[in-house]
């Protein structure tokens, strides 16, 4: 079918050769990356194959969530670090992107002030705070998208892991971290737009954010980011480093007595995960057109955990499937029965914890194993008949 020779020559190829589900996932994502924009831009409206722009944006949003779920699965699924504050890294990446988009508005704001964003004019500020410097520059902003979550994760992780805060205690302080940031970003004097956040964006790199082409490009970039992040995460968990992570997850003190600096191993993966979450936030903001402190909400972070749990923890592709499936369900049910969605989400979580400990992926694997067993027992009979 596929010529495996091509794969064997590169390290990444060998990685994918051993990861069938991952190959399917990447194939689907790459196909979507090409076909969805094509069906939006080329197909005439009303055609059977036409994908409306709102669907493109919605799918792009799901992919950002998928990237965020991957980030969480990397630390929770493989190292047992249950972060209930991963939404914070996502939001910080989003804010960094939002600040750049605010600077791009220039004098097209309501007050027509080229120097200051609207909300600062409204607050009677006279000059730009120092921490907004540099966000005019796209590359500086993209650097900040990765750097800000990384620095927070590094400082937080360094303190927490060095003090050997683990398990539920770690979960609680990550939750406290995102809540503290939520309260901070709500304040007008922080200079991030208070409870309205940052919005009213016009364009990115000169391309209008309202145009279908820009939206399709953002969608394609989101799909590509999920693919690249998936390969990166797969490479990490397949290395010896990944096996040390699993050892830490399942036998932390054994790993210490083997001579591994557990805190360094945790810190590295925590920072990588925070950067991926930041990138997800940065892709999300131009597609939804707003970033506000609500993204720091503790509930948001808990939802990420639910996506991963429902998809299948510790598999990477499960995280992607879970994020897309749960958010599709959310879109559908919040439209059809808005009052019951949160109850449904809770029920889904309880059911998946009680009956599907390995999530959707676990159920599929189990079904395949059963079928394989049945085939194995039925083959000899067929042989006897012929």
């Amino acid at each position, binding site marked *: 079918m596929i010529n495996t020779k091509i794969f064997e020559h590169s390290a990444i190829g060998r990685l994918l050769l051993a990861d069938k589900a991952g190959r399917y996932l990447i194939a689907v994502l790459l196909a979507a990356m090409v076909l969805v924009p094509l069906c939006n831009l080329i197909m005439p409206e009303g055609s059977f194959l036409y994908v409306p722009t709102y669907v493109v944006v919605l799918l792009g949003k799901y992919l950002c969530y998928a990237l965020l779920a991957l980030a969480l699965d990397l630390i929770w699924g493989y190292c047992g670090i249950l972060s209930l504050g991963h939404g914070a890294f996502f939001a910080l990446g989003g804010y960094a992107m939002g600040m750049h988009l605010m600077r791009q508005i220039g004098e097209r704001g309501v007050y027509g002030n080229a120097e200051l964003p609207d909300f600062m004019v409204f607050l009677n500020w006279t000059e730009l705070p120092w921490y907004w410097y540099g966000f005019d520059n796209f590359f500086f902003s993209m650097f900040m998208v990765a750097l800000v979550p990384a620095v927070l994760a590094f400082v937080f992780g360094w303190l927490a892991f060095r003090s050997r805060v683990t398990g539920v205690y770690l979960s609680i302080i990550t939750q406290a971290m995102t809540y503290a940031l939520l309260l901070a970003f709500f304040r007008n004097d922080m200079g991030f737009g208070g409870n309205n956040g940052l919005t009213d964006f016009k364009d990115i790199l000169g391309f209008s954010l309202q145009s279908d082409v820009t939206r399709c490009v953002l969608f394609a970039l989101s799909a590509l980011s999920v693919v690249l992040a998936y390969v990166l995460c797969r490479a990490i968990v397949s290395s010896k480093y990944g096996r040390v992570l699993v050892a830490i997850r399942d036998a932390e003190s054994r790993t210490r007595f083997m001579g591994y*600096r557990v805190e360094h191993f945790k810190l590295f993966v925590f920072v990588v995960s925070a950067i991926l979450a930041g990138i997800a936030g940065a892709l999300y903001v131009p597609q939804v057109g707003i970033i506000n402190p609500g993204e720091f909400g503790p509930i948001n972070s808990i939802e990420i955990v639910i996506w991963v749990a429902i998809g299948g923890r510790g598999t990477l592709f499960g995280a992607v499937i879970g994020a897309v499936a749960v958010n599709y369900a959310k879109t559908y049910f919040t439209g059809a029965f808005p009052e019951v969605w949160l109850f449904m989400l809770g029920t889904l979580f309880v059911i998946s914890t009680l009956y599907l400990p390995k999530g959707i992926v676990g159920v599929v694997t189990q079904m395949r194993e059963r079928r394989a067993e049945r085939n194995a027992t039925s083959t000899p009979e067929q042989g006897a008949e012929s």
Partner: protein
Amino acid sequence: MSAVVKSPGFHSDEIQSMLYLSGVTKSFDGFKAINNLSLDIAPGELRAIIGPNGAGKSTMMDIITGKTRPDTGQVRFQDSIDLTQYDEADIANLGIGRKFQKPTVVETLTVWENVELALAGTRSVMRALFHKLSAEQADKITDVIQLVGLKAKTGDLAGSLSHGQKQWLEIGMLIVQGPELLLVDEPAAGMTDHETMETAALLKEINKDHTVVVVEHDMDFIKALDSKVTVLHEGSVLAEGRLEVVSANPRVIEVYLGR
């Protein structure tokens, strides 16, 4: 001296004692788990430590391996290294391997992968990310798996092993770590009689190249080890010597053997 020197790797002409504890005390909320404990293990020695529950055996292990810091007293490794200054990972890299009471292996990894992780080498994050196994390392892993009798289980998940096999795997993981001193906590707990004897033989085999300290309850196992015995009671040493001598001590009979 020559009876003690069992391996050329020990530099025993320089080192007087592999492990030296003097006047070590540790209390938890006023309870003295370790009370003025002194212990001296010579290079190449095989030492058994016995004592009733609560005698302070596990706390002693915790102090030596850096998990717990003593309130007072000296803990020295190879004469000059003050172990109280280091943490678990440092101490493991200095050359002290520890086997837990409950078998502790990584159940979701295979036997091979468990041994690979324990294999001596640098422990840095970057090295682990870009690690490639050399043929020499692979041979070493194969050898150790063979030594602990798990060759047929090489590719199996450690979680699927029996209790005794997990104990052996953990011992194998200790050996590839390349330690000078092995601390083994109740290796025969929960084993069948046959497994117990095999484990004693395995530890004697390992003792050819390593200094070994074994904490154990099982008297048959201690007999099979045929080594010097230290009896702990209420956090300090009650008696020390050959098993025949120690077991004749009336105090020992009273607090431990008689029960």
